[in-house]
């Protein structure tokens, strides 16, 4: 990994979101450095998508967003619509799930990519056509020149996602947020798209946030991973270490719930119960009702993210114990 400058590209500080008085995001602290890939894992209701939609101001007006989102030091929460329009696509781009419905069905590809080019790079006329073609070539759409005048329904799902990526790159963003970009695609196409994202990142030096419920996908592509549950980050750390040796019981449960593709078959770890309703959160740690290690401390107060090893944090009372173990290991080493 390249050396990172000390200041992150994007820092989320205490980001909270509420809908109609119901809190769905409870203070997210996350940093993304230049050129880094951060994975955001969680199941439905974890708030992983809401986090970045809130950061970009893409939530409906009735959503109450509080906290800070610092882009190169500038807080963009509550920024003017004009400022946000400049940033969206220009500094931070976002691509979504189900590319077939994420592209406007009545506009040509040229128009849709061209829109981004005109807004963020000030291109016009023939220059748009040339640059759009170059982008389509980059993402691997064959016969790009002719395909510019085609419509989304004339492409396959995988191709549509490539077009979305091309559109996202049009503004030369520093950060690409990919929200479940491969969930609606076949497995072999998924592999293609992930490869493409890796290629694009390398060539353009872009940072990326990959939001997914698929642990395998995240583990292969991300440098760091944050696990979310019920609107909070419960564990965060370097990808390899997190998957090798998860700290938080929820993370352990998630990883244990994955059937192994090789080795012996074992009974899957299934986390009992279901995700809590945000309107009726349990006291203390949101995971406590489902956690095998829960005790009195867990229901007393909500645990905060604490470091327990180098570059690893988790929001669990077990962090203390892990820290002690780790220190002992360091001493013994």
């Amino acid at each position: 990994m390249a050396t990172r400058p000390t200041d992150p590209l994007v820092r989320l500080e205490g980001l909270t979101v509420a809908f109609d008085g119901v809190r769905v995001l409870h203070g997210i602290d996350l940093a993304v450095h230049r050129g880094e890939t951060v994975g955001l894992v969680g199941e439905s209701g974890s708030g992983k998508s809401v986090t970045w939609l809130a950061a970009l101001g893409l939530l409906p007006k009735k959503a109450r967003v509080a906290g800070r989102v610092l882009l190169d030091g500038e807080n963009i929460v509550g920024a003017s619509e004009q400022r946000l329009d400049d940033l969206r696509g220009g500094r931070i781009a976002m691509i979504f799930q189900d590319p077939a419905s994420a592209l406007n069905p009545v506009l040509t590809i040229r128009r849709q990519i061209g829109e981004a080019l005109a807004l963020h790079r000030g291109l016009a006329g023939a220059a748009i056509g040339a640059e759009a073609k170059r982008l389509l070539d980059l993402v691997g759409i064959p016969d790009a020149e002719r395909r510019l005048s085609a419509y989304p329904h004339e492409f396959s799902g995988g191709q549509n996602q490539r077009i979305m990526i091309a559109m996202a790159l049009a503004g030369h963003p520093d950060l690409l947020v990919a929200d479940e970009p491969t969930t609606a695609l076949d497995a072999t196409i998924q592999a293609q798209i992930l490869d493409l994202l890796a290629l694009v990142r390398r060539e353009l030096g872009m940072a990326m946030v990959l939001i997914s419920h698929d642990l395998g996908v995240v583990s292969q592509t991300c440098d760091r991973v944050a696990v979310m549950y019920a609107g909070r980050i419960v564990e965060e750390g370097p990808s390899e270490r997190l998957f090798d040796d998860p700290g938080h019981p929820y993370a352990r449960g998630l990883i244990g719930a994955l059937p192994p593709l090789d080795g012996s078959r074992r009974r899957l770890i299934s986390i009992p119960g279901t995700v809590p309703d945000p309107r009726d959160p349990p006291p203390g740690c949101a995971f406590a009702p489902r956690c095998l290690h829960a005790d009195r401390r867990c229901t007393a107060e909500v645990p905060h993210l604490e470091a327990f090893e180098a570059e690893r944090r988790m929001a669990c009372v077990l962090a203390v114990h892990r820290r002690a173990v780790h220190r002992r290991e360091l001493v013994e080493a």
Partner: protein
Amino acid sequence: MSEPLLRVDDVARHYTMRRGLFGRPTEVRAVDGVSFSIGRGETLGIVGESGSGKSTTGRVVLGLEDPDRGSVAFDGAALPPIGTPAWRGLRARMQMIFQDPLGALDRRLPIATQVREPLDIHGLGEPTARDARVVDLLDRVGLSADHGRRFPHELSGGQRQRAVLARALATAPDFLVCDEPISALDVSIQAQVVNLLTDLQAELGLAMLFVSHDLRVVRQVSRRVAVMYLGRIVEEGDADDLFAAPAHPYTRALVSAAPTPGRRMVDRVVLQGDPPDPADRPSGCSFHPRCPVAASRCRIEDPALVELGGGRRAACLFAAPGADAPSRKVA
């Protein structure tokens, strides 16, 4: 060796499609010559992507659609024609669960009523004893009597799928077809349902056909696996062996696309191109346009499914150590 519970012999299923209002009709071969058998209490997994024909295979095997070619035999006898009383009676012995549990349940009826329905339809047991059986079934799948009183929209996704399972098991079937039963559920809930399925397999000696795109889940639940591509089986064998050492290039690509967290990927295979269009089959080996090891032969010869030893079969000219694998020459 005893007669397998289910024997599928060279089954094919075609659809005719018209492009546009006056276009020439094209034949879409959703399933194009599939043969396998499932023994009592055995589970066969079928993996494939869109256009592979795996769901259609499931429906044909169950008797929900008539094959255009070939035959399906259940417990030694051919499947009766659809809609006949014999066919209806067979429903008590073979059942199916699908991807969308909400769609499979009637919104207006409480769960217990729906679980009881098959018992009433097939006249199983004394009417007075049926409610007790329903409670027993719900308990088996991990639902309480209280859950039984609720309506589908009042249950979570995982609970709904359990209810669907309970209903499917009401008649104590010998054979269960599962078509993507957990894809719509969260990962941690998937694990619950998968555990439940493996428990039921052991308890009830159910034979299953488990269709999914998710290799891991298929491996967890199945002893043997068949990989389908464009309507044909391209590889088949013991689940562990197949995923550990795939013989067919497509299987290798599928395994490569299902990485294990915490393990670095070796032998990464990324296919070019898009999933094939069943209405527009490539010549020769249907996989050759995307195959990383395709040779010029592959454009002409259509490989047959060949025994590779150890219970493994694969349809690839390069699968067997010797390159002289017999093949079907395209006319």
